[in-house]
């Protein structure tokens, strides 16, 4: 009997050469580099000194690591305010939209009624409309409530605009929770609220993670609503601040790069750690829509 290693050798030599995996890998690598180039450029610019950039070296590797840009941005009190504002909008709006989505999703999945499909469709289709469609009336509404130039309109609108996707994903997820579990809980004397909180929700942690990553990213990155609803500098969110500070640092590319990175850092971290949920949410929302 020949040894395994020996026989494996023989097989390898007889196996016909398949050029495809290599070709595909090369092809993907080139495309990946092209795709990364823009992001990479910003990263590089942020760690270069003004002098280096002024010599037209924006897209090359930096000659030395220069952290002055980050120091500049991070010591700017306006940036602190922007980040704080963004957080104060993102956290409550994410939590609120998911809560409302959980409530609605549970009814549509487990307590359907006559016409519930239609109501569900109406809620979900809100996902597809350009926000411009409701811009003016909302502006008027918040204006009359005296809430313009506060953080409230953004929290409220993000909550409301998050209801479609949250309801959709939660309904689809709750639908996979077996009915016998609910029926068993009913026999044990649980009411619907207890079933939701004690049975359905603990099983739905993955769905909640999906929604939290999605909503956090979208709200953090939003630009339109703060543009409409804020006026003074100390109410701006980071994305809006980014645009306004661009004027302030018009040719300081390194500082702009550092600012962009700092503004994107929370979403990049979320992406890095919760990528699986993120992608799942995107495809779930899309495919089942």
């Amino acid at each position, binding site marked *: 009997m020949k040894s*395994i290693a020996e*026989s*494996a050798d*023989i*097989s390898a030599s*007889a*196996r*016909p050469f398949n050029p495809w995996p290599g070709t595909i890998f090369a092809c993907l690598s080139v495309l990946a580099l092209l795709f990364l180039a823009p992001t990479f450029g910003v990263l590089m610019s942020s760690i270069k000194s003004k002098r280096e950039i002024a010599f037209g070296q924006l897209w090359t590797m930096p000659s030395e690591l220069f952290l002055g840009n980050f120091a500049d941005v991070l010591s700017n009190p306006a940036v602190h305010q922007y980040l704080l504002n963004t957080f104060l909008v993102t956290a409550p709006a994410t939590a609120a939209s998911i809560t409302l989505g959980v409530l609605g999703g549970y009814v549509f999945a487990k307590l359907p009624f006559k016409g519930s499909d239609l109501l569900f469709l109406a809620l979900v289709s809100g996902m597809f409309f350009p926000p411009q469609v409701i811009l003016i009336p909302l502006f008027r509404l918040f204006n009359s409530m005296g809430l313009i130039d506060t953080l409230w309109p953004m929290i409220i609108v993000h909550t409301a605009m998050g209801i479609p996707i949250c309801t959709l994903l939660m309904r689809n997820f709750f639908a996979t929770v077996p009915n016998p579990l609910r029926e068993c809980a009913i026999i044990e004397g649980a009411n619907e609220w207890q079933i939701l909180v004690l049975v359905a929700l603990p099983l739905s942690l993955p769905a909640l993670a999906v929604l939290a990553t999605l909503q956090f990213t979208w709200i953090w990155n939003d630009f339109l609503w703060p543009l409409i609803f804020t006026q003074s500098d100390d109410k701006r969110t980071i994305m809006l601040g980014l645009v306004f500070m661009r004027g302030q640092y018009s040719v300081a590319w390194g500082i702009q790069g550092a600012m962009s990175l700092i503004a994107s850092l929370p979403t990049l971290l979320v992406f890095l750690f919760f990528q699986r949920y993120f992608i799942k949410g995107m495809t779930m929302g899309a495919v089942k829509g």
Partner: protein
Amino acid sequence: MSSLKLQDVRKNFGTQTVIHGIDLDVEEGEFIVFVGPSGCGKSTMLRIISGLDQVTSGRIFIAGNDVTFTHPSKRQVAMVFQSYALFPHMTVAQNIGFGLRLAKLPKAEIAKRVFAAAEVLQIEDLLGRYPRQLSGGQRQRVAIGRAIIRNPRVFLFDEPLSNLDAALRVQMRLEIARLHNRLGATIVYVTHDQTEAMTLADRIVVIKEGEIAQVGNPLEVYESPANKFVAGFIGAPSMNFLKASIRAEGGRSSIQLYGAALAYLPDRFAREYIELGIRPEHLSFSESSDCDFWGVVELVEELGSESFAYLQTEFNPEPVTIRLEPNKKVKAGDKLPVSIDRNAMHVFSESGSTVAIGRI
């Protein structure tokens, strides 16, 4: 010339070896059934023969040609999948003619051959339908149609009946047997169902943990199992296994079952303990108390054509299954004397290999 030949075929997935060196020669026109419990590697064997998986080492020959590294489509094999693997967006005709379309045959030629294949399977009326409009049995036929139109040297069937309900399964089994008679094709068929294996096969290959446990025609495998695994796997209900001991008496040994000498072995036997294998039909209730052991009826299963009883005994933790003779009525709780047919005892060593069969 053998139609299919496997030479020391081995397969690893990562560090795990799933096929431990299989050798097999399949004759032209033979119906071979790979049978074994799930996870034994029988489906992997089929995928290796088809070329969907590659061997780690070893050789595969089809019609005398070494096809070990040949592309699946050039091996002259056709495969029928467990799920049928029909394209949902194609009609029955398009599904059957898929390979011919890939080969860019003229449309008229394709249509002609598709119709011929459909006639063999009596599905001419279904050619314009989509798979979703077909019943399970019809889908099965379409999948077979896609195989026979290729005119392969070897047909590969991967548990083709497991998605059908019981009645349909029996019917399709018959049809596959008929098809084999008509086409005279070489068939390698994988199943975990020993009844399917017994009824369809010219030769059964029993596989256990990536190794061949026994090869032989169905009766051989049933009557002379090579080891305890085969004995237990083939036949339903399963063979009874009873712990017994050996006692040396002078120049010979006797098999002792619960203190009574059952039979004598011709030679001195170098073991102390053995297992006796007895099929349910080789046990019977004695008319008198002159018996091999007593059993208390625990449960009676009446299947209509035959009946079985499960007996509690004092020496075996597992219940002993016995086939009742027609008209024999017993009820739970009866304590009855049981005799063993001395001509049909299988003796297994503790390691599970067969020591002697039949009259000892």
